[in-house]
């Protein structure tokens, strides 16, 4: 469970930082090919996890451009490491961060932004001082969704990270292995630990969306 929670936490933090500017550009700018870029960002949501896993193996493997670059820089491999599954988890969960954040940013009254510009704020300062504080519900929902999606990831992580205890073996892989070995008691205990975490986070999402509707 430690690797699972660490992975979910790392993915959530990285995606909050990464998805905020992406969501801003998708919500506020128009550029040629925007719908293609948007569809590309949402693609991991529509693809089978094993397909994503396969392409990530190709990219992060010793002959892939990310994997070979990493090997040149560090001398090590990205596959079967915690960093490797963290990258996989970030790519796998990116639509779940971008979609609610973009919706929250787009919902902000444009007149507030105009007032901020009149008051002398740059676009960056307006993003930090007006957009972010007024999108708290959407940002929190994105963080929770990413966290939940990351703790439940299986296929992608199995393909990219394998099952190395303490390094890449996440809870969902542990359940799968326990069931394979007919160890239903262990599988049941790990499975049970997911329920209160997921339930509590879903309650929190409901509370946040109720709050933003009020």
């Amino acid at each position: 469970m430690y690797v699972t929670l660490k992975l979910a936490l790392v993915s959530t933090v990285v995606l909050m930082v990464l998805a905020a500017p992406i969501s801003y550009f998708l919500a506020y700018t128009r550029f040629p090919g925007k719908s293609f870029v948007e569809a590309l960002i949402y693609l991991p949501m529509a693809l089978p996890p094993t397909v994503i896993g396969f392409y990530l193996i190709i990219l992060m493997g010793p002959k892939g451009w990310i994997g070979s670059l990493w090997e040149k820089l560090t001398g090590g491999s990205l596959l079967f490491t915690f960093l490797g599954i963290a990258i996989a988890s970030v790519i796998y969960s990116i639509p779940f961060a971008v979609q609610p954040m973009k919706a929250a940013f787009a919902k902000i009254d444009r007149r507030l932004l105009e007032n901020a510009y009149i008051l002398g704020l740059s676009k960056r300062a307006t993003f930090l001082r007006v957009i972010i504080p007024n999108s708290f519900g959407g940002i929190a929902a994105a963080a929770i969704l990413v966290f939940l999606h990351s703790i439940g990831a299986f296929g992608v992580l199995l393909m990219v990270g394998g099952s190395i205890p303490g390094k890449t073996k996440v809870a969902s892989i542990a359940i799968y292995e326990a069931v394979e070995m007919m160890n239903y008691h262990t599988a049941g205990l790990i499975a049970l630990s997911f329920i209160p975490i997921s339930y509590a986070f879903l309650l929190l999402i409901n509370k946040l969306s109720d709050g933003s509707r009020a």
Partner: protein
Amino acid sequence: MTVSASFRKKLKYFDVDISFECHSKKMMVLIGPSGGGKTTIIRMLAGLETPDEGRICFGNDTWFDSLRRINVKPQKRRLGYVFQDYNLFPHLNLFDNAAFAAADKKEVHALFELLRIDHLKKRKPHMVSGGERQRCAICQALARHPRLLLLDEPFSALDVVTRRGLREEIKSLKGKLSCPIIYVTHDINEALFLADEILPVVDGKADYGWMQRTITREPGEGTPTRGAREPRLSLVY
């Protein structure tokens, strides 16, 4: 300092084509029927919209010049803009709203006292009345030491009694400000009460007969409020 503008912009149903200037310590009221282009005009002064052609200058500074391809961003124009719906930031209390871009926070306290909302500093915008939000929006605009103050139908969402009170406040505030003020309204009484100059705008163009026609059509509607002095119509170049 004087703001002078002469510009054109093509809109869906008509073209805005107007020239005017407004001097320091003077209030020019843009009046006309709703949907006649008044708000678009001051949005172009603020830099929130771009004219198709023309020129906007403030003193020696050029804010917009289509020939020289100059278009100064709203952030750099340093003006105050009181929007029709106030546009206060909902996540901040009234004081933080007003102090958002203030040059000096002490002045914000003084402005709150001047506009009699100092007891509401800690309240969020949704917790106060429309009139109080309006006063806060004025504090927000003034706290930035604007070179030009724009007010876009600031009383449109308020009841008659509150409007009357705030109208008096704006008039007394006007005497304390040294910048030019441009005020948008469709209320003839308000215009006659507040204006040093009146620029009637119909379908994006100056129409000096509009007020006379409106008053003749609706007797009593355009009667100047007691105490109002006769404003002169804008000198257009």
